[in-house]
């Protein structure tokens, strides 16, 4: 007994069963035992486009995520690929085809568009895809290279040779160079209303003269005086030249057989189209890159691919066999200076990029100035912190924008620093709160030392290298295009580290930096003094202050509220004292309010379970709803008290970094509400 379901494994068998049932109920019948091809009536909207009464819905592998093909015999027109209506673009996720009604609805839409015309975008679709002949390969062809007049006039034609590059891949070269090479002839035509689907239809597009030339080619082929030839029809379309390369071969019976080549442009301009929209903005760009190691090579490659016109690449190293695992240059270039390898690679791939390769490791300031002369941007990809600092200072003096990239902690973190006109100087960032220091690992990042080499090998994996290069290229493009949408320092965590804010994968944002609280010297001294005075008992009190504009607590006072039952192991805030203390502080400065609690531990133990429980309970009290009260514990270590701070976050206490701050400026009369 024949199965009711198609011979097709689907991830959605229930949906498939429903669809097949709908087909049957709508009068469709299977064409064969596989139940993959179903014939049914052609929808009315297609009847003026075909004489056929039936069409076929073909279920293909990948159903339901891949749409079925709809074959309509005799259907003609753009967007009908060999009688298959091009109903859905590749990648369509609408699943409109899950029902027959959905398919018919789409056919209706297609037919209306067909009737109105698909517009310029539709006409730009590749003409070769409609030509009904076996595909023989790909032809790299550029009309600009073949024709002296652009755009070529419809009566114009010319010769070219067909050079084999790889099996199935050919290149059209102007003129007939060698008799052994297959000959080609191109004919310019008027843009057709619809693409030709056969040699006869193609011939109709030619002028009488060109038709005669085509006939002569066909006679030569048929008489086997020529092994094969290519005839290329060329017309000017809305998105550049359309080319239809048709191959002609003897068929062994005194005639010819027709084949097809898929045309592809290989000009500089065609490649530049893929460089993206920024390529035009980079026409005058000159970049000097220091360091063409793993990160630098991928970075240079990204910049050249994106359309940069002039790259000066500086590196004193040679490409070693082990380098090629992470370097952009392939093993073919082993033994080349890294810069020479990259020059070869980039100029070949990106003909618009002129590369200067300098095999050196410059430190002298005059030499660096010389290399930066005329550049729009300096890039440091040396991964050498000392050189980065040196170059940053030179660039500051020259007002030269700089982008510096490096990987840290075995490739766990990539950091790109930009030093443009309005940016904070790189040399000063170590001291600045906006630029978190990437902590060193207690274990070394390096995997060892090469023999005779003092530089450790960074253990960053290739993926981290490429990620760092991408981040740096993005920063460079952001700067060169003048968009400046990126911050002057971008840190990307590729593998989480234990340290905050590097503990989550992705971009580090300033709001992810470890929470901090500011503490005045006076408040700190008060806690230390009261804790020491109360020893061996605990004491404590409350923290008073106000939030900064960024929301960090700024503790300006620490008030002691003496416990009504002093003890070496506990501290109790007496009832009814807290708000009085706050009110007293407010009488002096009405901006102040309650920020949290403090107490001492006369031993080295940190925050206790009871401390945590009290703080969580406190945070839920109506008086503190929505706030995150702080807790400072002063614990005694080797006779001295040290402070540790935390704050309530959800159901836990999160460590808070205490930073020193000066006193609160006095309130100006006109700015009482700061």
């Amino acid at each position, binding site marked *: 007994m024949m199965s009711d379901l198609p011979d097709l494994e689907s991830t959605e068998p229930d949906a498939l069963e429903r669809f097949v049932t709908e087909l049957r109920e709508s009068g469709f019948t299977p064409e064969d035992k596989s139940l993959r091809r179903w014939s049914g009536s052609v929808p009315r909207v297609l009847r003026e486009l075909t004489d056929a009464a039936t069409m076929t819905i073909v279920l293909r592998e990948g159903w339901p995520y891949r749409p079925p093909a709809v074959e309509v015999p005799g259907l003609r027109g753009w967007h009908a690929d060999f009688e298959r209506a091009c109903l859905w673009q590749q990648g369509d996720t609408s699943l409109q085809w899950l029902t027959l009604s959905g398919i018919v609805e789409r056919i209706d839409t297609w037919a209306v568009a067909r009737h109105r015309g698909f517009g310029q975008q539709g006409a730009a679709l590749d003409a070769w895809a409609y030509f009904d002949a076996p595909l023989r390969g790909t032809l790299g062809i550029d009309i600009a290279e073949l024709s002296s007049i652009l755009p070529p006039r419809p009566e114009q034609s010319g010769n070219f040779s067909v050079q084999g590059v790889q099996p199935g891949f050919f290149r059209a070269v102007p003129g007939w160079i060698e008799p052994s090479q297959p000959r080609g002839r191109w004919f310019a035509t008027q843009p057709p209303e619809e693409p030709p689907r056969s040699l006869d239809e193609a011939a109709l597009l030619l002028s009488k003269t060109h038709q005669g030339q085509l006939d002569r080619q066909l006679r030569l082929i048929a008489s086997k005086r020529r092994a094969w030839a290519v005839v290329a029809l060329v017309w000017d379309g809305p998105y550049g030249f359309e080319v239809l390369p048709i191959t002609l071969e003897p068929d062994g019976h005194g005639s010819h057989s027709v084949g097809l080549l898929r045309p592809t442009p290989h000009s500089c301009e065609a490649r530049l189209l893929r460089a993206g929209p920024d390529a035009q903005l980079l026409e005058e760009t000159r970049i000097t890159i220091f360091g063409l190691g793993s990160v630098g090579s991928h970075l240079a490659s990204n910049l050249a691919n994106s359309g940069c016109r002039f790259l000066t690449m500086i590196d004193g190293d040679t490409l070693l066999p082990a380098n090629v695992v992470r370097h952009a240059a392939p093993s073919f270039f082993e033994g080349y200076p890294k810069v020479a390898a990259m020059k070869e690679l980039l100029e070949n791939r990106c003909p618009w990029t002129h590369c200067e390769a300098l095999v050196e490791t410059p430190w002298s300031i005059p030499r660096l100035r010389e290399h930066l002369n005329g550049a729009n941007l300096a890039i440091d990809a040396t991964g050498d912190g000392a050189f980065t600092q040196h170059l940053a200072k030179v660039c500051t003096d020259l007002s030269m924008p700089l982008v510096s990239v490096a990987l840290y902690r075995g490739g766990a973190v990539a950091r790109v620093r930009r030093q443009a006109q309005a940016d904070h100087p790189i040399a000063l960032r170590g001291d600045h709160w906006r630029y978190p220091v990437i902590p060193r690992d207690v274990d070394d990042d390096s995997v060892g030392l090469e023999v005779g080499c003092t530089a450790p090998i960074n253990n960053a994996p290739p993926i981290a290298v490429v990620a760092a290069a991408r981040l740096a290229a993005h920063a460079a493009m952001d700067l060169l295009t003048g968009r400046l949408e990126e911050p002057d320092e971008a840190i990307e965590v590729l593998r989480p580290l234990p340290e905050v804010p590097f503990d989550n994968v992705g971009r580090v944002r300033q709001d992810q930096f470890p929470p901090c609280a500011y503490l005045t010297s006076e408040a700190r001294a008060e806690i230390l003094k009261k804790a020491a005075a109360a020893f061996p008992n605990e004491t404590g009190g409350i923290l008073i202050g106000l939030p900064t504009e960024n929301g960090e607590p700024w503790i300006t006072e620490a008030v002691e509220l003496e416990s009504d039952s002093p003890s070496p192991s506990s501290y109790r805030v007496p009832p009814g004292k807290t708000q009085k203390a706050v009110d007293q502080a407010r009488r002096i400065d009405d901006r102040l309010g309650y920020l949290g609690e403090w107490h001492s531990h006369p031993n080295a133990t940190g925050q206790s379970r009871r401390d945590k429980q009290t703080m969580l309970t406190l945070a839920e009290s109506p008086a503190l709803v929505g706030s995150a009260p702080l807790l400072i514990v002063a614990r005694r270590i080797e006779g001295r008290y040290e402070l540790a701070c935390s704050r309530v976050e959800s159901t836990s206490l999160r460590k808070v970094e205490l930073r020193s701050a000066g006193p609160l400026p006095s309130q100006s009369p006109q700015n009482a509400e*700061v």
Partner: protein
Amino acid sequence: MELLREQFDQAFTNLDLGVRVQVAKAAHEDVRSFLEARPELRVLGFKSTLIGSYPRHTAIWPGKDVDIFGKFDGLNIATSTPGQIYDLVLHALEQRYGERITPQPRSIKISFGPGSAPGERYLRQFEAQAAAVHEFSVDVVPAVHWGERWGIPNRVPPGMDLSVNEIRAETRRLWESRHPDERWQETDPEQVTVLTQEANARHRLNSHGAFCRIARAMKQVRVVHLGGAKPNGLYLEFALLEAFDSVRIGLTSWPEAVRDSLHAVACRLDEATDSPLCDPVLGRPFEPGPTPTEIDAASRVFHRLADQATRAMREARCPAAAAWRKILGENGQSADGWVFPLPDGCAEDGRDLSARRNVLRGSDEARGFG
């Protein structure tokens, strides 16, 4: 440029000996009055003065000792040996201070502490202070005439791989030498004090003597950034004397003076291997001087700090204060331990803090912590 005048004044105060001056004063007065009253010393013309950074006003907090120069006016290097006068002073001090005496290679150290305070009056005044405030020592260095200058007992050059007892024995052998210039070492520390005071009077800034303040700042930088490694504090003072007298130190503001001094010291260190720094009184290369490695390490540190200081001078108030704070580091005297205080509204990370009103009054419920 942010002058941060108030903060610099406070920073220099934080570098001073502060309450420790009382300790030093009580301690050296106690020792000097005792020694000058001893008949066996008086008969040899014994008189004492203070030498070292304390009387030069270049000592920095916490200043653990003060040096007493015990001059025997009736003796000279030809007619006496170091052993004679050293033992004379040692025995006298032992009678009063007993086990608190520690013989040093060429001096005698007397230790003071909470249980052995040098004077009741100051103990009462500072009884609330931590015990560390009271820990102090006095070094007595005996000396005899060496022409116009003075001779102090010679010592085995430091750095020799010898035990304490071996050093003592070697020193004693040296002191018995037939040649006076082997037994004694020529010095004139009082004249160094005079030079320092003159320099301080000559170079003034904001109605303060600039030399001593700057010398203290450089010494603090050495402690913080060189971990106390050579060159020592006196070497830095001599380098600064050269720099001040050759008008390489700008004296229009404290930031400028500190920056120029850092730079001048760094540059002098760069030249030091080929052109050693000299003792300005004796006119001879400073001894024991730093090694080329030590000079190189110190030069790099001072150049780096000079660069940081230059950048701090270009910064706004808060980042400038944060930078100066890092340059001068901590010494534990101020409330938060840092030498350079933060101005109003400035944070240690360089931020200029502005604030919003806090409406919270807290909870009046009783609560307990463990």
